[in-house]
């Protein structure tokens, strides 16, 4: 539906170069650290900036040179940019002021109801909580029935507890209305929980596009793996479709040719079991479980124990097993980086 075709934007000391497409009804996330070019990409899509080369196609039509007014894309900024001199109702109606009054009223009621804003209809936007502001911003962006909704870190300004519930709401909304969303975030958890697909961006380019489960469990390279939190990088030997884990060998789900590979193994895929002996060097209690670090023949390995009955003390001996579920090597050329 939306095709971003070799889009390039040059700055004196930075270059953004992206290529991807988003299907109708898809929740597509651009994930990356700040300064990686994801917001610039979003601004290019919105038409707030124009690329130096490449094109943007919407349903096959080239809209690269179309001004933002003509694109019919909804946009929600991180700080929502609600018009301070207009109340909730007028903010929402802003983009459909040219429509007839009856339609405006109908659309307003729909959106107020959808976002549970009925009681705030006449309220000044200056007196809204962060969550309410976000709902007004979403309602305003959706009022003209945009073909694509662009969200630039819409949760960044909210409390963590509020963030989670609003995230859930956004997900339901997207599914219910079949919205096509391009979502920019630096928060992995948000990207993982909301998206159909995630594009990981770094230094102006997209390094990987994949589904959340794949990107988390089978990252392509070291950087992608490290981006989603703690992981263990372990070099393991593979022979005859089985991986050597200390004293034992485990059959891989998807066989690969013999050799030595670098694997990214998340702490939750290692636990007490058989294969590798170690000594606990540190422990962090996380509430739902305990994250341990153990000194082993592979160096320090992190592993998670869920619902523990007690916390192991420093210096205790453990034997660790490995789950081969989703185990896949990460990109060879990145191994030494």
């Amino acid at each position: 539906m939306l095709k971003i075709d070799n889009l390039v934007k040059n700055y004196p000391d930075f270059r953004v170069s992206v290529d991807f497409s988003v299907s109708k009804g898809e929740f597509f996330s651009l994930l990356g650290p700040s300064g990686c070019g994801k917001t610039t990409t979003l601004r290019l899509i919105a038409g707030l900036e124009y690329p130096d080369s490449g094109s943007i196609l919407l349903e096959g039509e080239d809209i690269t040179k179309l001004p933002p007014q003509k694109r019919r894309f909804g946009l929600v900024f991180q700080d929502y940019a609600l018009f301070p001199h207009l109340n909730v109702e007028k903010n929402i109606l802003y983009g459909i002021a040219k429509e007839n009054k009856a339609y405006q009223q109908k659309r307003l009621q729909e959106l107020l109801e959808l976002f549970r804003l009925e009681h705030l209809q006449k309220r000044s936007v200056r007196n809204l909580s962060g969550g309410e502001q976000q709902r007004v911003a979403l309602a305003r962006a959706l009022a003209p029935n945009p073909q694509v909704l662009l969200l630039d870190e819409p949760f960044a300004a909210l409390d963590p507890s509020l963030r989670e519930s609003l995230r859930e709401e956004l997900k339901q909304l997207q599914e219910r209305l079949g919205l096509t969303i391009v979502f920019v975030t630096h928060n992995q958890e948000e990207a993982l929980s909301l998206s159909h697909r995630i594009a990981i961006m770094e230094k102006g380019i997209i390094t990987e596009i994949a589904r959340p489960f794949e990107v988390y469990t089978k990252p392509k390279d070291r950087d992608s793996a490290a981006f989603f939190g703690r992981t263990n990088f372990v070099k393991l030997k593979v022979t005859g479709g089985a991986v050597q884990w200390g004293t034992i060998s485990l059959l891989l789900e998807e066989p690969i040719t013999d050799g030595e590979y670098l694997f990214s193994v998340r702490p939750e895929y290692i636990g007490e079991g058989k294969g590798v002996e170690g000594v606990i060097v540190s422990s962090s209690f996380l509430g739902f479980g305990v994250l341990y670090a153990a000194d082993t023949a592979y160096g320090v390995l992190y592993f998670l124990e869920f619902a523990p009955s007690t916390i192991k003390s420093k210096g205790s001996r453990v034997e660790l097993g490995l789950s081969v579920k989703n185990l896949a090597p990460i990109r060879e050329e990145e191994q030494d980086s």
Partner: protein
Amino acid sequence: MKDLRIFALVLLVVIVYVPIVGLVVKLAALPNLFELIKELLEDPSLYRVIRFTYSQAAISAAISLVVGLPAAYFFSHYNFKGKELLRNFTMISFILPSILVVLAMIVYYGQQGLFSRTFGIGTFIYSYAGIVFAHVFYNFSLSIRIVGGTWEKLNERLVESAYTLGDSKFKAFFRIELPLLWPSIAYSWLLAFLYSSLSFAIVLVFGGVSYNTLEVFIYTLTRRLNMEKAHLLAFLQLLFSFFFILIVNRFSSRSEQTSKAFTTSRAVPLVYERKKAVKILLVLYFAVLLVLFGGPLLNLFWRSFVPRGEAGFVTLENYRSLFGSRVERVLGTPLWQVFINSFLLSGTSSLVSVWLAYILARHYPKLRPWFLVPLGVSMMSYGFGVLVTLKSWMPPAILMLFTQVFIAFPVVYSIVSLGVEEINPEYREVAATLGSTESEITRRIYLPLLRPALQSAFAYGMALSLGDLTGVMLVGEGRFVTFTVALYRLIGHYSFPEGTALGTLVSILFIILFVFIESGGGKKSNAQDR
């Protein structure tokens, strides 16, 4: 320490409040007050003066706004080489003494002025239009600073959101930008209105017998020794100016609120494409500003090196003549004495103001509105208050000093108190736990942190005091000659060559002070046109 605080507070009360309260009390004590009021109300000249004062102020303020807005737009939307210099250049006219502006206008727009001769037109300055023009010259930078300041910080995402919702640039301007800029526009109009209505030097010289503002009218009555009528009018002026400052303050806080709540430091660089048409407009606009407003000042500098009747021949003749005996006769005092008077008076009053401001800002933050009262009092009302209240029991030198502190203090206080507010109070507490006494905390924590603000405040205070003509003329009764009085007398005696020489020296002094104000990062507060 405590004694010092109380002394500072008492001193401020004596300087600011005793003359104001004295003015009112002494007026109430006049035995023929009601006859006086009746007489005044029946006097048609009063209505003429009031009509002129406020009509010219309203027009001057409106034109100032219109002249300044394009610059406010350019400065807030475009980045170009020399922008800061150009911006500072537009600000300079605002801090120059008004009598200097008068002189610069005479030698440029006067009968023999460069502008009049070049374009072959007669002079317009001794008229309603001339007075308005001078006020625009003086105040157009207000809208650049106030409206431009808000515009520059306006969250550009608001406008971008409007674009994505279908607005053209033109439409977004009227639906989003203008409503948000409105309080700042109103505030800058009101401030220019207030300054123009309190104008003294410009109207004194250009108004002749036809045009009087209330300030000039009161002064003229005093000179004619019609003291009772002047007293009543000074009271009336006090009421008017106080009423207007209340309105100004309302808009000031509204303007600031908009500024604070809905602006941001731009996260995204300005990406507005620079079209050729915009470039041409920009150059044209600033060229017109340069000819109309820069011209008088540049011409003043140039003329100071060109002796009478010897156009094109550069010498220091005017400067030599400035220090000669003819000028001494005109001024009634040698020029070196004028320098000493000016520096001593402005330096001391600014120093006293900074000291008072520091002590009061640190120890009586809650009294802030009371310390800003002088902003709402016309200089003529205050000066008259000093004459009727303090003159009989204080030497003239002290009265002069009080007048100058009154002028400098509110602005100095705004800058210093802003600086004090920005200092985390925990520094004081930490220093105390580390063993520092109060005076050590002042010396080792507050003064170093406040240095830029104090520098700015001192320079600003000095500039305001040096630029004052109203206070020195009224309270000094012509015996105390400062730069502004000297310029006024040189203009009165048609000694323009020497006037341009002194004017150039004073301008250089003000440019130096301006650099000090700016480099100290001092906020340009509501300085009144005195």
